[in-house]
């Protein structure tokens, strides 16, 4: 398909702005742009059709089943979008006087209250713009905590080898050294090894629970106990919170800091890679280090308290991805306590139902036949038998009109496919998916070449990624 730069014609365009009604100021020449500015020269019709064509070549949750493990691609309710478009939210300048932004502060305060309750934390800060940004912020709190105690030798963050790549990357960015701990054959943190790596240099430990193989770390209290005993703090990666709302809370498992992904658990859309929102929650003893001042009520008005001098400082402009928080709050209000728990139970039910109907033929290495909200399939054996890889399998699913599961993650599983159906899929969708997975599995044995050649029905076939990286073309060149 053509790029927008290859459409239109010289001097074509839209008439959007009025004539100048004040004297036109002429800029001192030394500041003037001399270089050419090549932007599209297109009509509104062309823009509209261009993006409609791009939309056709894009697959969202609205297009169909999207079982990306660890990503919680649940349905994004329309009322959330509608509320985030209210002009009383969109047309508010971030530096307006406090009494003119009472609605915005109420959104933050209510969302904070509900998320504290869901996580068992005492404070939530909405400044971080995404999960990884939340991790960075949360780790800075841990860093500030040790620094204030003059415990500066604590420079190591322990991360399981099954962790999301952002965990070690965030730790490194916050100035820590990363220590990886292996998982046991049943997919849990190896407690014996953990005991040997903790010590006087342990700053903290990061974990998602349920973990990335989709099972609950049963010995969680022992794990957080070991870290605390050694003088470290425990960080909860909220990527998998969708499994446990209303059932158990990170705060009750011994975690001191959490981040949440509002664009996963709380139904705000991913937008093709953002904007998300990665609020950070913490126990009271860490609250003074948070980037944003607390919102409290004073004389009948919501105000920001004075910022604590121990704050790590801001991690972004203003207060965070506000409109995303509006969407998440709308969602929490809609569901309420009972609805949130229902979400988690059905997310776990759907995953177990799907897994149960696949486990007779697929190798599911962890969980002994049970899982939380997601499960991991290993196609290592299938690959040995048929030469069909996880990649081939995933690409074949595209021809069936469904989005593949997360591939090749976690890294501890060979030829991994990580499946997270979410609670917003119906039984009939799951039944269809079961049929599709089983059919593709048979095809792998009957005609592996067909799988190697897939997809054939998608807008394009497999792209040459090696060529893309070897000889990068990352912008259009105007002739």
């Amino acid at each position, binding site marked *: 398909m053509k790029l927008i730069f290859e459409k239109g014609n010289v001097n074509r365009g839209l008439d959007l702005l009025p004539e100048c009604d004040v004297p036109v100021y002429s800029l001192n020449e030394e500041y003037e742009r*001399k270089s050419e500015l090549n932007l599209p020269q297109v009509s509104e019709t062309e*823009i509209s059709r261009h993006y409609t064509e791009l939309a056709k070549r894009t697959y969202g949750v609205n297009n169909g089943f999207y079982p990306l493990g660890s990503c919680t691609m649940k349905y994004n309710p329309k009322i959330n979008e509608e509320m985030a478009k209210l002009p009383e939210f969109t047309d508010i300048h971030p530096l307006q006087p406090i009494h003119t932004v009472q609605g915005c502060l109420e959104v933050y305060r209510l969302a904070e209250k509900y998320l504290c309750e869901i996580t068992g934390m005492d404070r939530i800060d909405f400044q971080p713009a995404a999960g990884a940004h939340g991790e960075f912020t949360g780790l*800075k709190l841990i860093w500030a905590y040790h620094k204030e105690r003059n415990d500066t030798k604590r420079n190591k963050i322990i991360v399981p080898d099954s962790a999301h790549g952002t965990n070690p990357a965030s730790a490194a960015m916050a100035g820590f050294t990363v220590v990886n701990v292996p998982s046991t054959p049943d997919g849990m943190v190896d407690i014996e090894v953990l005991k040997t790596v903790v010590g006087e240099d342990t700053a903290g430990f990061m974990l998602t629970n349920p973990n990335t193989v989709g099972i609950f770390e049963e010995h969680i209290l022992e794990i957080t106990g070991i870290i605390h005993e050694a003088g470290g703090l425990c960080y909860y990666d909220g990527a998998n919170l969708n499994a446990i709302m209303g059932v158990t*809370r990170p705060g009750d498992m011994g975690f001191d800091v959490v981040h949440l992904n509002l664009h996963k658990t709380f139904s705000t*859309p991913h937008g093709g890679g953002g904007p998300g929102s990665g609020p950070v929650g913490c126990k009271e003893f860490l609250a003074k280090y948070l980037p944003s001042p607390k919102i409290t009520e004073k004389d009948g008005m919501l105000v920001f308290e004075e910022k604590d001098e121990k704050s790590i400082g801001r*991690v972004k402009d203003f207060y965070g991805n506000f409109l995303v928080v509006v969407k998440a709050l709308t969602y929490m209000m809609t569901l309420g306590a009972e609805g949130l728990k229902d979400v988690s139970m059905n997310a776990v039910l759907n995953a177990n139902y799907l897994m149960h109907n696949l486990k007779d033929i697929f190798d599911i290495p962890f969980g002994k036949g049970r899982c939380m909200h997601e499960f991991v399939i290993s196609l290592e054996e299938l690959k040995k038998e048929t030469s069909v890889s996880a990649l081939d399998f995933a690409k074949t699913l595209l021809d069936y009109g469904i989005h593949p599961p997360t591939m090749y993650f976690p890294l501890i599983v060979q030829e991994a496919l990580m499946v997270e159906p979410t609670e917003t899929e119906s039984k009939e969708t799951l039944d269809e998916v079961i049929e599709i997975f089983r059919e593709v599995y048979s095809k792998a044995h009957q005609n592996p070449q067909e799988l190697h050649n897939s997809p054939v029905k998608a807008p394009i076939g497999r792209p040459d990624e090696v060529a893309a990286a070897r000889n990068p073309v990352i912008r259009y060149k105007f002739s």
Partner: protein
Amino acid sequence: MGTYVPNTKEEQHQMLQAIGLNSMEELYDTIPEEVRLKSPLNIPKGMSEMEVARRMRSIAGKNRVFPTVFRGCGAYRHYIPAIVKQVTSKEEFITAYTPYQAEISQGVLQSIFEYQTMICELTGMEVSNASVYDGATAAAEAIIMSKERNRKKALVSATVNPMIIETIFTYLDGTDMELEIIPAKDGLTDIKIFKDKLSSDTACVLIQQPNFYGLLEDCDEVGKMLAGTDIKYIMSCNPISLGILKTPAEYGADIAVGEGQPLGLSLSFGGPYLGFMATTSKLMRRLPGRIVGETKDSQGRRAFVLTLQAREQHIRREKASSNICSNQALCAMTAAVYLAAMGKEGLRRAAVLSMSKAHYLAERLCELEGYNLVYKGEFFNEFVTTVNADTDKILKTLEDHGILGGYPLSNNQILWCATEVNTKEEIDTLISILKEVA
């Protein structure tokens, strides 16, 4: 109670039976009793959609939308073409994930490729990433990417927006990089001090154009000063101003960053916004975040993919160039649609109108007793004046007339802003109201 779970209680029961369980609670029997919640969450009962809408509208109603705005200071009210909002409301774009599965994500990938091209055109740079969170984190990431083994000091001008400086400080604090602020003189970076501070351990310098006070810095001089050195020249820019102002590339910058919010994003109480980052081909592999590249598919057709992923966290883990994963993709698409709609002439007009209105505003303000420009330099669409009464009193009076005045820098200085949306009539009204305050 609202719900988005499609399965009825009967269906849930059937599914439970199919997997050999009798109740939902049994799904959780691997969770130890000690950490199980003993009572329901203390969150109000769910509501129907109509009730939720009513409640949220009542909360929104506690905000005040100002019909007239003369405040910028890092967030700018510009005209947003109707096509921008329509295009970016398409469900496929809103509900898609990061485009890892290229074959069914060509739409998102191509839109990012087009965005990257537009950012390169705007800044004059050679390569752009797919976006970062906002202008502040873009500046912090640029500083981190400029680090060399023996160059770990960042020199940042005091005329950079204080929020950006604070963010940089947070990012560098606790790492092996060091931050030094170069003082301002008459509202501009003191280039002489800058020059004196350059040394063999300087990794980069950061200048904002136009700066926090709206003034145009002597970026040529900075460019000359850094030419031929290994010190990275980082410029933070207002993207609308680049419709008429010299580009970072023309000034010799190595990295251009900025807040992309003026490109079609609403004010939204501070977010979501858009951080843009562009650099030279030489520094391409140090860029943080996603980058989309063009290639061919198995049939030889044009195709787009996420590329140069060896820089990223999901591959490199603790050795990645940044931890960034989700970025601001839909905001980047918004900026691309905005730039497509505006075109070269439209963007230029937005810039000229903003600059002209700001100069008219400044001229009219200075007719008032006690109002003077604090700084004498050339400015774009923001400037600082003294005022003839306490800023609180002035701004309160304006507020009573539905006007959000400039941002108070102190009790006797205001940072004003005008854009193309401010009419002559609005400015004249502002002046007549201010005449009455003393």
